[in-house]
């Protein structure tokens, strides 16, 4: 499929990752190949230790594969230096974490501006873009609030605004609803769905809740460092039924 490879935002080919801690060798990824095209919404599932976190770190350019290649948005990042990877994270990837990870005692708008500060964007432009991003997640009037003055859902929306503000190629969300109640989790997932549907944002989301995974359009399941299952999700209700059957 040369055509689809050209359209891929993420292209992993036979990626291995081996951690060495002293004598012990951990084979975290055993030959993973994955193509994610622009505008896809992928849910990554799997038990802990299955390699999904390792893969997220690789996709997020926080780490390098031991072998294999990783092409992000047409650029080979598997051989990049530390600084090049930092710049790539800055411009191409928007992170959303389980624990929100806002800088404490720093206002929402300054948190959203932060990636643009590292990108060297002028204060006026980044303030404008940060405000727009906050408005997009429905927090226009909270821009001067500190993280500890915001609810969990609001903090995660600030984090989402921060991820979006630098116009990344992909959004990487690691258990983004893990620390939220189900109602707030639903609200956050609605925003993800909206971003995917309206702005064709490519989203890769790690979760172990079938309920949350069902918001995505494609499911990738990991087991023992390999991709065990990779299939489209057609309809949310069907998916939930299917998941329920598998549980039994």
């Amino acid at each position, binding site marked *: 499929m040369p055509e689809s490879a050209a359209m891929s935002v993420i292209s992993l080919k036979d990626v291995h990752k081996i951690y060495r801690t002293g004598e012990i060798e951990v084979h975290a990824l055993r030959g993973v190949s994955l193509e994610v095209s622009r505008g896809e919404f992928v849910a990554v599932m799997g038990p802990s230790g299955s390699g999904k976190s390792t893969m997220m770190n690789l996709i997020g350019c*926080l*780490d390098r594969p031991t072998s294999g290649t990783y092409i992000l948005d047409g650029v080979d990042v598997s051989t990049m230096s530390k*600084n090049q990877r*930092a710049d790539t*994270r*800055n411009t191409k990837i928007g992170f959303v974490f389980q624990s929100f990870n806002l800088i404490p005692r720093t206002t929402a708008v300054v948190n959203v501006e932060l*990636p643009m*500060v590292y990108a*060297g964007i002028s204060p006026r432009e980044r303030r404008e873009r940060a405000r727009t991003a906050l408005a997009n997640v429905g927090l226009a009037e909270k821009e001067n609030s500190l993280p500890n003055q915001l609810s969990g859902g609001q903090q995660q929306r600030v984090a989402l605004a921060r991820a979006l503000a630098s116009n990344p190629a992909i959004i990487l969300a690691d258990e983004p609803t893990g620390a939220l109640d189900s109602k707030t989790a639903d609200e956050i997932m609605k925003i993800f769905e909206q971003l995917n549907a309206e702005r064709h944002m490519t989203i890769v989301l790690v979760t172990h809740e079938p309920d949350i995974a069902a918001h995505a359009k494609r499911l990738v399941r990991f087991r023992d460092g390999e991709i065990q299952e990779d299939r489209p999700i057609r309809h949310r209700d069907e998916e939930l039924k299917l998941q329920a059957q598998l549980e039994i």
Partner: protein
Amino acid sequence: MRIIDIQKMAVHALGKNKIQTALTMLGIVIGVSAVIAMVSLGQGAQKLVQDQVAGMGTNVLQVQGQGQYSGGGGGARGSTDQSQVLTEADVDAIRKEIPAVAMATPVVQAQGQFVNGNQNWSSRIEGSNEFYLDIRGWKIAQGEFFTESDVRTASKIVILGKTIADTLFPGGEAVGQSIRIRNLPYRVIGVLAAKGQNSNGQDQDDTAIMPYTTIQKKMLGAALPRIQRITVSAISAAATGPAKDQITALLRERHQIRPGQQDDFRVNNITEVAEAAENTTRVMTLLLGSIAAVSLLVGGIGIMNIMLVSVTERTREIGIRMAIGSRGSYIRMQFLAESVILCMVGGFIGVLAGIGLSLTIAHVMGWPSFVSPQAATVAFLFSAATGIFFGYYPAHKAASLDPIEALRYE
């Protein structure tokens, strides 16, 4: 990333922990102000010594008679009257026979009651010849000094110190007036320029000068020519050493002192004494400065400690910053900027505090107030360097964190 943004971030981070920042800064403030105060005080003391030495005259040697203890057989000469040892002939010999000597004067001292109408004042009188003023480097403010013929004729004239003149002639002109000292009338022909207090708090202007012959013949009426001291000036600072040796040799010969026998006089080289005093104060300054520098060093170590704690505390924050695209070097620059700003602000406050401290101490001690600009500059630059030196390791530690590990840090 823009430099201004790094500075803003650093200031913002310091502002988050105001008490911690203030306490850390205090270490630098104390260090810098201590260095400035100590060095300034030391240099002030040095200046004081220099001023005093200048007041004693240039290239001056003092010859004083002293009791001789020859011990052993015969009648003990014991303690000869000091004032009997030196003679006018000694003065002439020193002046004429020793090439290293420029000028020499006998000094005869007396104490007396000065009276002008109903004003009276007790003070010290120094008798000398016409060279005295030049030897001691003193100046006449009004009137004139006496001449060789005044010495020869033992004229009843006097030159007053500022304090005496002001006391006897409040608001009036002293020169040309007649006063009584020990019930004899003397004409005031000059007033000395003010010299102020010396380091012992003694008023240097509370002295009068007249020809030594006048004191000997008119005032004391002594049969013997008594001379307490001979004050000599050498032709140059370098000549003071040879002059001392030559005077010693000459006087031993003149006083017929056999080899092995003790001198019945003592020659003091004021330049030597001054150099020793100056050396002492210089060493003191260095010592005080080094002790103060140690406190600056301790302040720097305090900064390093706080920065290390701060890096650990903010590990997760560093992880977040790296994840959203900060290069390691930006993290390093931010932490380095924090410690440098801490030190520079602390250093600046320290400079102000140090200047205030040295002025206050100088005022309390009654020393000439003096702020060493070199010490201020060096201490400030040193504090900035402290910031870089002690901030670098914590900053480097922060920059080399692994973002994955840092993000996982609780």
